[in-house]
């Protein structure tokens, strides 16, 4: 186990390096001269040159990458061009809404999608199965922001059950917090539910055709026991894998969902940064999200043994 853990951790290093190179190149390739931008309109050529030297912009790619990467490793993501605040501070201020949205969506999606997939596999070919598959293909096809507006129109404007937009921190009460997250989670989670339900169904169908499932049925066990204890447990590995891979979808969706629902999170920060071309923020956010994605999938890999003790690392 320890040997595997070390090998697996080592294997993520090249991935992280590639991500860092890509992210750094984005800034390196940025059109325009950051020194000129920072110096402002009334700066002289000498001022610009001084700032350029201060920032190390006159150094070659290799050295600049090294300086940047070692700063990132120390937790320094640079300074926003627009607000002059450290990027880590800006991200820190906005992490709560994004984390709340992601966790809410994750919990809702997994607790809905897995039963849906199990049910569809159990009743394969029946009307329930068809409905789940229909939902799944529709979930893949409706853009997250279109769904978001439909939900706002139906539940917030027409029925007036939930707030239209905005975010309330958790410390101001559980219900105000949750009520602002229900619609965003539904919009964001739909494609995720579609993905997980589909994979759960496929994995369950595979397991349900095994001999030991037939034996369990023949012993006269209740269908629920066979489904949950014999089948689902053995279908867990592909399901957990897709939950991890789907985090990528979730992250992409967060950016859009936060914009539609005016949630002041990291996604919103990203969109504002794009519109202002505030590259250090864009870089920092991409680096953070990619690291989260790599980390989640590392944890997923390590969890296989928990779900299936037969797996030897």
């Amino acid at each position, binding site marked *: 186990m320890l040997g595997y853990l070390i090998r697996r951790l080592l294997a993520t290093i*090249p*991935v*992280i*390096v*590639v*991500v860092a*190179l*890509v*992210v750094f190149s*984005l800034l390196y*390739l*940025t*059109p325009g001269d950051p020194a000129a931008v920072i110096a402002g309109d009334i700066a002289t050529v000498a001022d610009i040159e001084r700032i350029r030297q201060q920032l190390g912009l006159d150094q070659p790619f290799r050295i600049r990458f090294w300086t940047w990467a070692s700063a990132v490793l120390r937790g320094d993501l640079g300074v926003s061009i627009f607000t002059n605040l450290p990027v880590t501070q800006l991200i820190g201020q906005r992490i709560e809404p994004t984390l709340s949205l992601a966790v809410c969506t994750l919990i809702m999606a997994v607790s809905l999608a897995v039963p849906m997939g199990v049910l569809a596999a159990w009743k394969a070919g029946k009307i329930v199965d068809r409905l789940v598959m229909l939902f799944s*293909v*529709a979930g*893949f*096809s*409706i*853009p*997250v*922001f*279109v769904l978001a*507006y*439909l939900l*706002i*129109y139906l539940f917030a*404007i027409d029925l007036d059950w939930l707030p239209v937009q905005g975010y309330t921190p958790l410390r101001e009460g559980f219900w105000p917090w949750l009520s602002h997250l229900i619609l965003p989670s539904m919009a964001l989670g739909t494609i995720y539910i579609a993905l997980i339900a*589909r994979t759960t*169904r*496929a994995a369950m*169908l*595979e397991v349900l055709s095994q001999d030991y499932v037939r034996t369990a049925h023949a012993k006269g066990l209740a269908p629920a026991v066979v489904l949950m204890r014999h089948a689902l447990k053995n279908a867990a590995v592909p399901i957990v894998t897709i939950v991890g891979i789907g985090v*990528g*979808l979730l*992250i*992409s*969706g967060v*950016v*859009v969902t936060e*914009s*539609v629902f005016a949630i002041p999170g990291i996604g919103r920060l*990203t*969109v504002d940064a*794009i*519109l202002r*071309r505030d*590259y250090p923020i*864009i*870089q920092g*956010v*991409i680096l953070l*999200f*990619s690291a989260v*994605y*790599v980390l989640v*999938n590392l944890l997923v890999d390590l969890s296989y043994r928990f779900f299936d003790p037969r797996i030897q690392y």
Partner: protein
Amino acid sequence: MAAIADNVAAPATASQSPTWLRIKDALRRHPTAILGAVALLLLILMAVLAPLLFTVDPQAISPIRRLRPPSETYWFGTDMLGRDVYSRVVYGARVSLAVGLSVGLLATVIGLAIGLVTGFLRWLDGIVMRIMDGLMSIPSVLLAIALMALTKASLENVIIAITITEVPRVVRLIRGLVLTLREQPYVDAAIAAGTGTTRILLRHILPNTVAPLLVQSTYICASAMLTEAILSFLGAGTPPNIPSWGNIMAEGRSLFQIANYLIFFPGLFLSIAVLSINLLGDGLRDALDPRLARTM
């Protein structure tokens, strides 16, 4: 001579036909795939014939007639500049389909080339796959956004940016296939017979990647259309002077409470387009991969 050539050609087409037959058979068994194909065809027709479909200039502004709700004159209403939303949506099909098809084609061809070579050349494999893994761990919409932030907004740049995010998926698929295929006895036989690497790749490996590649490229097409809409919606995509479905919705964002049709109509068309491609892709997958067909 011609007659002989015809005779030789005939079995060749016959040997290709099982794939084609399976597609036809599956389309018959999957009415939803036919539905998808027909809807897609209609959308393509709509895009091509846009000027003939009772549209007006999609860019013609008319400040007096702004924000009119859908009516007999303005089927889908007018936007805040008085432009006819129906015409904009019809013309918008051109942008979405162009992006979807171009990205589908480009990503498939580039990914196929890289995948074939890396799958066959061991020394290259490690390097290229680490790069692909790295690219794939950056959430695709974010990568596309970042690439768009580097360049000026244009349709070509949108297509390039989305293609870059989709290529690694194709490379991974093809490489996996090549790794399996190269262990096949007929490849060993070809190597033993002294066939060159290029010829083995083109004659023995490439034809076997066509079916899964076809399925993958339909999904890429669908996902590219969604990404284009997201980019435009966030203001980092197709330039605002081109009426794309994402742009129309982006402009309707702030007016959602008073003019929801600005989001509704383009959103509906985009969903239908993506849905029809996905249905077609599912049908193709069932047809071309009988093992998967049972489970998915």
